[in-house]
C-alpha cells in the first residue's frame, strides 16, 4: 500500500456549509514527488491544511491513511510525529522563541513521541552540529539561529526556515505549500537544491504550487491538476509544461484522468 492514501476526501470551512474539497483521491509513497497545481481558490492550500489537521476545516467525508493508520484521528502534533510535515505558505512568527530553541523542542518532541519512543533529549552539541549543517545547506546566516523564529523575517527567509525545519525533522512525507512564492531566483535555487538533497528513498513530497516555476528545479514524478476541489487531471512532469503553455482555462475542458 502507498504510504499516503487519500480517498474521497471532502472538507468544509469549519462550522459552515461551504465545501472546499469535493472528493480528492490521491496516493503517494516515499521516494515520489507529486505536484498539485491549480488556480487560486481551487482548494490547494485547504488540502495541505486538512492533511496537517488545521482547526479551520471540518472533514465531512472520506479518509486519509498514513502508513495504514487513519490520519484524521490524529492531532496535528501526532501527525507530525508520525512523519508528516507541512511547509506553510504563510509561516507564523513565534515571538520570544529562538530558531535554535524552537527546532530543538520540535526535535525532542519527535524523539519522545515518535516510533523510537526515546525519552532522551538530543545532546546539545550534536543538535548544534546538525542545525549548523542544515543552515549551511540552505545558505542561512548562522547568527539567525538566535533570533525569534520568523519574527520580522522576510517572506523568502520564512520559506528557508520552513525547509530548515523539514531538514531537521526528516519527515516521511512533506507537503510544500507554495514554497516558491515570495522567493527570488537565487533563493528559489537554494531552497530547491535543499529540497532535492532531502527527498530520497526515505522521503516523499507533495508540492503544491500555482506556477510551474519550482518544478523546473524539483522534477515531479506525477502532476495533478486541482480545480474546484477536485483533481481533474493527472499526468507526468510534461503536464506542468502543457499547463504553462495553455493555462488552466483550457485544461478544465479535458476533465479526464490519464491514469497514474
Amino acid at each position, binding site marked *: 500500500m502507498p504510504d499516503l492514501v487519500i480517498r474521497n476526501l471532502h472538507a468544509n470551512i469549519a462550522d459552515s456549509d461551504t465545501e472546499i474539497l469535493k472528493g480528492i483521491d490521491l496516493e503517494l509513497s516515499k521516494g515520489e514527488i507529486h505536484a498539485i497545481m491549480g488556480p487560486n481558490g481551487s482548494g490547494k492550500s485547504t488540502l495541505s491544511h486538512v492533511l496537517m489537521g488545521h*482547526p479551520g476545516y471540518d472533514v465531512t467525508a472520506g479518509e486519509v491513511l498514513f502508513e495504514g493508520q487513519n490520519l484524521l484521528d490524529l492531532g496535528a502534533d501526532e501527525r507530525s510525529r508520525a512523519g508528516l510535515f507541512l511547509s506553510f505558505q504563510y509561516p507564523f512568527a513565534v515571538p520570544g522563541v529562538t530558531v535554535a530553541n524552537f527546532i530543538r523542542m520540535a526535535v525532542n518532541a519527535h524523539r519522545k513521541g515518535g516510533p523510537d519512543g526515546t525519552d532522551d533529549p538530543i545532546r546539545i552539541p550534536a543538535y548544534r552540529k546538525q542545525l549548523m549543517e542544515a543552515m549551511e545547506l540552505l545558505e542561512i546566516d548562522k547568527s539567525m539561529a538566535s533570533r525569534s523564529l520568523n519574527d520580522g523575517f522576510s517572506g523568502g527567509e520564512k520559506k528557508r526556515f520552513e525547509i530548515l525545519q523539514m531538514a531537521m525533522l526528516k519527515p516521511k512525507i512533506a507537503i510544500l505549500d507554495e514554497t516558491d512564492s515570495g522567493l527570488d531566483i537565487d533563493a528559489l535555487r537554494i531552497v530547491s537544491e535543499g529540497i532535492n538533497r532531502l527527498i530520497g528513498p526515505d522521503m516523499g513530497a507533495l508540492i503544491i504550487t500555482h506556477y510551474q516555476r519550482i518544478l523546473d528545479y524539483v522534477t515531479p514524478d506525477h502532476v495533478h491538476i486541482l480545480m474546484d476541489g477536485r483533481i481533474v487531471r493527472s499526468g507526468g512532469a510534461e503536464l506542468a509544461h502543457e499547463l504553462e503553455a495553455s493555462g488552466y482555462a483550457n485544461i478544465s475542458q479535458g476533465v479526464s484522468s490519464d491514469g497514474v
Partner: protein
Amino acid sequence: MTAWLEERRRTAAEQNEALAIPSGADEHWRFTSLRGIDFAAYASSEQAAAGSPEGAILADGDHAGRVVMRDGGVVLEQIDPSVTAQGVVFGSIKRLAAERGDLVEPVLGTIVGYDEKFAAENGALWTDGALLHVPAGVKVELPFHVAYEIATEGAAQHWRLIISLGEGSEATLVEEHLPGRPGYANGVAELVVADRSHLTYVVVQDRHDQSLHFAAHRAEIGHDATLEWAACSTGSKTGKTRMETRLIGAGSTGRLSGVFVVDQKRHLDLDTTQEHDAPNAISDLAFKGVLLDQARSVWRGVIRVAEGAHGTDAYQENRNLLLSPNARADSIPGLEIDTNDVRCTHGATAGPVDPMLKFYLRSRGIPPLEAERMIVEGFLEDALERIPNERIRTALTTAVMRRIPL
C-alpha cells in the same frame, strides 16, 4: 525619636485621619473594590522570628548586602565590608533614621507625600524597611537585596524603602516580597536617581495568594541619569501598586518593564505614571500580563508631559494574554501633554492564545500543552529579557512560569 521624624509622622497621621478609604467613586479605584476588607483586623507587630528568608531569588554570595524585614521589624542586616569601605550605607531604615538622619531626612516623605490614603497610613505607621545610599561616583556591581515577608498570619507590615544614588554612581537593588503567610502589606519606596547615575531596580511581588498588597514606588531621575526598573507581580489577593517615574533632569531615561501572572479569583491593580518635567527625556514602559481562571488585572498608565519638556520621547504599552474565557484584563492608557515637539505612543491588547499559532507549533510535533507553554513563555520573553542581570532574569523566569500550570 528625632523631632523631624516625629513631625512627619504627625503630618501623615493627620492626613490618614482625614482621608477615607477609597471607594469606587474615586476614578482610580473604579475597578478595584476595597469593600468588605477590614483593615483594622490586621495586627501591627514588631516582633518576628530571626533568620534568613527561604526561597529568595538571590543566594548568599550573590549580593552585596541583604536586609530582611519580617512582619514589623528588620531581622537581618548584612553588608559586604568592601562596599562599606566605599562609603555605601545600607541597612534598616529605622536604625538609620536615628543614626544617619542626614541621609533619611532629605528624602523621607518628600518623594511620596501623604496626600493619598495608603501612603498617608504608611507615613504614620511604618515600622522599618531599608535604606541604600551610594556616594557620588561609586559603582557597585553586585545587587543589594531587600526581602519583605509576613510570617505571622494576619499581621500588618508597613515597610519603607529609600534608595539614594549620588551623582554618577551605579547600583542594583532587588526588592522581593516573599509569599510567607496571608496578611496586609502597605509600603512606600522613594528613589533618588541623581545626575548621571544608573539605578537598576527589580521588584518581585510574590506575596501569599490571600495577602493584601499596597505599595507606592516613586522615582525622581536627574540629568542624564537612568533608571532601569523591572517589576514582576505574581502574588497577592488584591490591592494596588503605584509605580511612578518622574524625569526631572534633561536627558534622563526611565524604563519600566513588567510581567504579571494572575490566577484564581485574584485581582492585580497597577497604576503607573511617566512624568516628563525636563526636556529630551525618554520613558518607556511595557507590561506583559498573563491571566488565568477568573483573575482580573487593571493597568492604568499616564504619560504626563509638562510645559517646556520638549523633545520628550514616551512610550507605554500593556499586552495581556487571557488563558481562560473568564479572565479579564483592563488597560487604561492616558496622555496629558502640555508641550509641543514630543513623541508619545501607547498600545494595549488583550486576547487568548492565537489558535493558528498553536496549530503551527503543533504541526512541528509539539504537544498542545507544551505549545501553549512555549507561546506564553515567548510572550513574556521580551519583557523579561530587559532585566539586565542574567541570574535575576533566570530566577524570575522560573518564578513566573511556576505560576502557569501548563
